[in-house]
């Protein structure tokens, strides 16, 4: 157990450093409007908007090739922010792209996993650890809840999406006008 923790922490550290360097070296070229839009998008990287990820969607919005209401994970809050930023009228979420849901994270059932590595290949944020033929696991803190690994997994009920548990540390007061 302890060795597992140590080695996983070590791995996380090493990858973190690598990622840091990589993002410096391979920084995406700058476009202020696209950057600002991208900063608002939730970075779930799920592709529900119809683009390959949040940045391509940001580019499409900046070039007037997409509406601001196509991101289900961002929902109303993101639409409001985009409408503020771009000075356009807010629109209701286009449900053709999906419905806004509470945030969820992926969990891999360790008993069921066959170690095929397909989930690793689709995870947009490298939140899955594992090697061929060995049990895989999700780094919960890194998971954006994009759902992409679920259809990629060949085994049924191996990857499950579960809502983020509410506890005394992430609980929030509700707005009184929402309460009832």
């Amino acid at each position, binding site marked *: 157990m302890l060795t597992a923790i140590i080695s996983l922490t070590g791995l996380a550290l090493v990858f973190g450093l690598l990622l840091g360097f990589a*993002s410096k070296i*391979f920084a995406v070229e700058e476009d202020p409007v696209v950057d600002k839009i991208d900063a608002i*998008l939730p*970075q779930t*990287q799920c592709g529900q908007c119809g683009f390959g990820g949040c940045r391509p969607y940001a580019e499409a919005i900046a070039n007037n090739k997409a509406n601001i209401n196509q991101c289900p994970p961002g929902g109303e809050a993101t639409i409001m922010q985009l409408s503020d930023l771009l000075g356009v009228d807010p629109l209701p979420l286009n449900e053709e792209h999906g419905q806004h849901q509470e945030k969820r994270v992926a969990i891999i059932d360790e008993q069921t996993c066959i170690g095929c590595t397909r989930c690793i290949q689709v995870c*947009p944020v490298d*939140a899955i650890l594992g090697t061929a033929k060995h049990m895989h696991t999700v780094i919960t803190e890194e998971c954006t809840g994009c759902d992409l690994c679920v259809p990629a997994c060949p085994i049924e009920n191996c990857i499950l999406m579960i809502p983020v548990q509410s506890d005394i540390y992430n609980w*929030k*007061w509700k*707005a009184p006008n929402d309460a009832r």
Partner: protein
Amino acid sequence: MTHAKPNLYTFAGGLALKGHKTLSNQRPIAQLPIPPQLVIPIQEHIGQITEPVVKVGDEVYKGQLLARTTGKISSPIHASSSGEIIAIEHHPVPHPSGLQAQCIIIATDGKDQWLTPPRYQSDYLNKSTPQLLQKIADAGIVGMGGAGFPASVKLSPKQSIDTLILNGAECEPYITCDDLLMQTHAQDIMLGTEIIMQILGAKQCFIGIEDNKPKAIEAMQHALKPLGKNNIEVVVIPSYYPTGGEKQLIRVLTGQSIPSKAIPAEFGMLCHNVATAYAIYHAIAYQQPLISRIVTVTGSAIQQPQNIDVLIGTTIDDLVQACATDPANIPHLIMGGPMMGYSLKHIATPIIKTSNCVLALEQALSPPAMPCIRCGQCADVCPVQLLPQQLYWYAHAKDMDKIQNYALFDCIECGCCSYVCPSRIPLIQYFRYAKQEIWAQEKEQQKSDHARQRHQAREARLARQKAEREQARAKKKQALKKSADNQSDDPKKAAIAAALERVKQKKAKQTTSTDE
């Protein structure tokens, strides 16, 4: 009636509230039999969570360490009585969410046996400041008047402190636990004050007590005399809500206004509660950890309102029963007072180090709200001089940018504005909501920035790998072509050579055969 000191300073806003104090302060402090079960949350303070050092099945003694600190801003947890650990599991805790959190559950054995019984050491002040601070940290002492910040951390400010403010104001209606503590243990509080002053190197101390507590004032003044200290003063202040707020009390006692975003230590002042001073004295002079406190159990739904000396981890149903009240008969249960408290969903919630009052009411405090009529009364009573109706407007509209232009984070959640609002708008709830929403949004933003970074890094990695693969493929192709060239040369040449060789041999054979 004891009169407030003349010429005291005042603060803006505030309210003269009906105290409801005599409901609970007329009886002596009650002692409870040891409850059969103690539910001790592993987080009773602000800061990092603690880590249990016991396991299910362990026998523990009173005062034994149950959970140790995991960081600098943390506070250890001790067993409040002896018995067996029967579970370490989720259980309702005092929190506005009504959610559960990790608790250590002790089935008590009734013996109340100490690990090391508290023993008085007469030379207790003869220690270095770090030693004293360590003892306070080890005893698990947290601020007992409010949020539960670890006392040893608060007692080590970066700034030098010359004035200690001891808070005995207890300005919130219904609550009388500090009143009773001062009446009965004034001497220990004074000795604790002395310890705190020594640690801080403070030159003077003001002890602020509201004039609605004549007995407590008398007891404190009486306890001060034999100390022969003329740099400690018991100051009688008017009963006016929220005088017990840190910045309000400092203003009343010293005239100093502490501006927005500043902390009192920047002005050479530090504030502690009287109950914390009491606990510090027992930690230093007796080596006793913080395992009990005085709790006011009061309100219209309680048959026999009173203060009780409670072991940490005792659940509220036990307390209510000790006040001749059926726990099933409580329509509205509040942790804390009517102004700043919050509703509790479960009566089996335990008392923790910061629980000062259990308020049980027959009627809910919040009647339905009506629209804001912009009367401005809320702004008149706000002790921080905010504009609650503006804050409300933006909180209602969920405009978390604009609300911050109105100093939302200066709001001390005193509830004065909600109290006076003729439209009964639960203003304080809106402000609690808005603060947490902003914190949550900041966290979300950090998370999504982080996800963006990871995604970009992945994209970059994939692009690099693709490029590498392409390069490798191109190289291979070239290599293949080369070797193919070589090979295609070779067999031909070899074939020709072989054929020539064969012809040669044939010829040679023929000549030899004709020779024969």
